[in-house]
């Protein structure tokens, strides 16, 4: 069980010119544990979807063959389990036990066997609560554990994990890695897509690298693959272990204060907090989930009114009282989810929006847009719909939109979250240059590498409310 063979496999989504994945020849034997790698756009997720039988025949064009235990994946669905990135959209039921039972009910498992299998699956992933635990009360990592249990309860011969930790903070990611390590038996074949290689390595014994243009670039034991291809993969954005990024130290100390928070609180979300952000400084805000980091970012960004205490921008007072257009010239906010901030249908319009709202003349708007497109490597995407961008492109665009109105202070919420190494380095370099030009930067982050590379000071929030 769980054996797969691909011969010249390719898939092109309906309406797309380029093949998402092409020319893949592979054979994975029963019980193997494979890390599937490749630069962004190499077709890893498409390949997993094909293996999971989730590409309906009418949704695109295929070539070559895929077989799981000699069957078309669409007919081998019962043999395959898949866990996706986003825990929120994988849970179906409001009670944890019911959620694990959901798949068993669908497969027609006799009622008497369901609950023992639910308990067994919950135990295998180390789920620490009872069956009645509301799924809404779980952290992201716990929800993802539950999603894994829901898949394992079906006893798949082939388990597919599509960046299972990408949406999780480091603590949640650790929970998932532990759960996978604990739950996997010898009878299960594993294929995991994960660009944070160090996190996946303990789980795998084979690495397969997809070539973006088609075919397989490398295939073998992790040591050999990384010795031969590690440098190039790191260059292309894969987080290969042993390729550290040099820190970007500030050349001069912080300058004048840009914004001061004094005993600022928000009811149920942020305990009294005091901090000052200066010109030419990168301040990292860290701390556990629920400590109010994002709330603090929204307060500093002039987007929320504090319940008590003051936010004092220098000069000009409380930023939450300013009109939105004025705000964008002083403080730029970059949200964790770039898509929240997109309001037009073209990348270029997205960049032009801010300068237009503050009444810049058309010629200047054009200059700003061209400059940002070029600086953030978005020229080829000027006419694209922002919602169709990849994660890295969307992140670059959301930062660029905040820069379009040239604010002195930039507030970013998890800017490097889920980014590949290449985008990560571009962001760090961009922020370092802004800092060296005298901008103040606040970044809410869980990313220790980011803090080490860039932060001049760190403000840690503790869970207090």
């Amino acid at each position, binding site marked *: 069980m769980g054996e797969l063979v691909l011969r010249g496999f390719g898939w092109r989504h309906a309406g797309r010119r380029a093949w998402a994945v092409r020319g893949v020849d592979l054979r994975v034997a029963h019980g193997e544990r494979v890390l599937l790698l490749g630069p962004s756009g190499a077709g890893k997720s498409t390949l997993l979807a094909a293996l*999971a039988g*989730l590409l309906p025949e009418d949704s695109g064009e295929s070539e070559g063959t895929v077989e799981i235990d000699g069957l078309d994946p669409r007919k081998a*669905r*019962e043999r395959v*389990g*898949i866990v*996706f990135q*986003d825990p*929120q*959209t*994988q*849970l*179906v*039921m*409001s*009670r944890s036990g*019911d959620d694990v*039972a*959901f*798949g*068993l*009910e*669908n*497969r*027609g*498992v*006799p*009622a008497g066997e369901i*609950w023992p299998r*639910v308990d067994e699956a919950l135990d295998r992933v180390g789920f620490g609560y009872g069956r009645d635990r*509301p*799924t*809404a009360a779980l952290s992201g990592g716990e929800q993802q554990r539950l999603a894994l249990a*829901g*898949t394992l309860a*079906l006893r798949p011969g082939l388990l597919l994990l599509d960046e299972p930790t990408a949406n999780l903070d480091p603590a949640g990611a650790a929970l998932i890695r532990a759960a996978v390590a604990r739950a996997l038996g010898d009878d299960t074949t594993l294929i995991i897509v994960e660009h944070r290689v160090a996190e996946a390595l303990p789980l795998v014994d084979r690495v397969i690298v997809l070539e973006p243009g088609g075919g397989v670039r490398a295939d073998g034991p992790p040591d050999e693959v990384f010795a031969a291809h590690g440098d190039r993969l790191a260059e292309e954005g894969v987080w290969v272990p042993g390729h550290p990024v040099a820190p970007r130290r500030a050349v001069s100390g912080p300058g004048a204060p840009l914004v001061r928070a004094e005993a600022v609180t928000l009811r149920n979300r942020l305990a009294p907090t005091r901090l000052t952000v200066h010109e030419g400084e990168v301040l990292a805000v860290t701390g556990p989930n629920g400590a109010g980091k994002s709330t603090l970012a*929204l307060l500093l*960004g002039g*987007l929320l009114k504090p319940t008590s205490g003051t936010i004092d921008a220098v000069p000009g007072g409380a930023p939450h009282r300013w*009109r*939105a*257009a004025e*705000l*964008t010239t002083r403080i*730029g*906010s970059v*949200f964790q*989810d770039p*898509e*929240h*901030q997109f*309001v037009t249908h073209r990348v270029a319009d997205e960049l032009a*929006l*801010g300068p237009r*709202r*503050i009444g810049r003349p058309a010629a200047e708007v054009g200059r700003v847009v061209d400059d940002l497109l070029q600086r953030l490597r978005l020229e080829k995407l000027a006419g694209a719909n922002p*919602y169709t961008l990849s994660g890295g492109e969307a992140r670059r665009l959301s930062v660029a*939109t*905040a820069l379009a*109105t040239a604010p002195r202070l930039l507030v970013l919420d998890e800017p490097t979250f889920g980014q590949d190494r290449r985008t990560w380095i571009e962001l760090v370099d961009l922020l370092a240059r802004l800092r060296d030009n005298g901008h103040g930067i606040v970044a809410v982050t869980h990313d220790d590498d980011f803090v080490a590379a860039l932060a001049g000071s760190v403000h840690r929030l503790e869970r207090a409310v």
Partner: protein
Amino acid sequence: MTLTLPTFEASTAPLARRNPVAKLAAALLFSAPLIATLDPLTPTIALAVELAVLPLFGMRYGTLFRRAWPLVLAAGGIVITLVLFAAERTGATVATLGPFAVTTGVLVTALGMVLRVFAIALPGIIVFATTDPTDLADALVQNVRAPARFAIGALAAFRLVPLLGEEWQMLSLARRARGIDAGRNPVAKLRLFVSTAFALLVGALRRGGRLAVAMDARGFDAGTPRTYARRQTFGRADAALMAGAMLVSAAALTTSVLVGLFRPIIG
């Protein structure tokens, strides 16, 4: 603005335990006949019954009030509307507010309508407050043969509803961060509202799509007959609840007819 779905603790109260479909049907059978009359007596009897059986649903009066308070607004609206616009101003004048004579006739009509609103709405509020949505979906599939694809699908979508509240706040704040606000201009406000709502809808559809794929990946579209981990049964007590609801409602109407207060809504 954060929406939270109420959490349900398995109640052992005799009526709360009844089959969800039976409870829902009983609420309908009880409320529907009350629509027939405009007199104040029928809804008064119905309300008395509803409040009397509340403990049998294991629900506190305070909880009911918290859930029903939007009805108070509706009631206030009814009174104001009638004071201003009532065509028949019969009876003695109680007070004069400028050009409006507030008469006993107006007040009795207003009272009747307010009582009706409460009497008709409360059964639904009580039933939904004491019914776990999962149980309701299970009962719909198992006891009335509703398609699982519909009932379980709706249940899963329902679970995403609280996310919409957070999403709305983030989208609104994100628009301000992009330099978009409406100030005091009502047209700009409406446009901002529409564009935020559209973004919310797009996001909800994408999430819904991802959820649907995840559900199918766990065999929701497998086509094999589903089994049920949680059994919902429909027994005699459930049938009795439905019959009882219908009888009590009919009795309230009959009383009103016998006393001579019955005012049919038609005619």
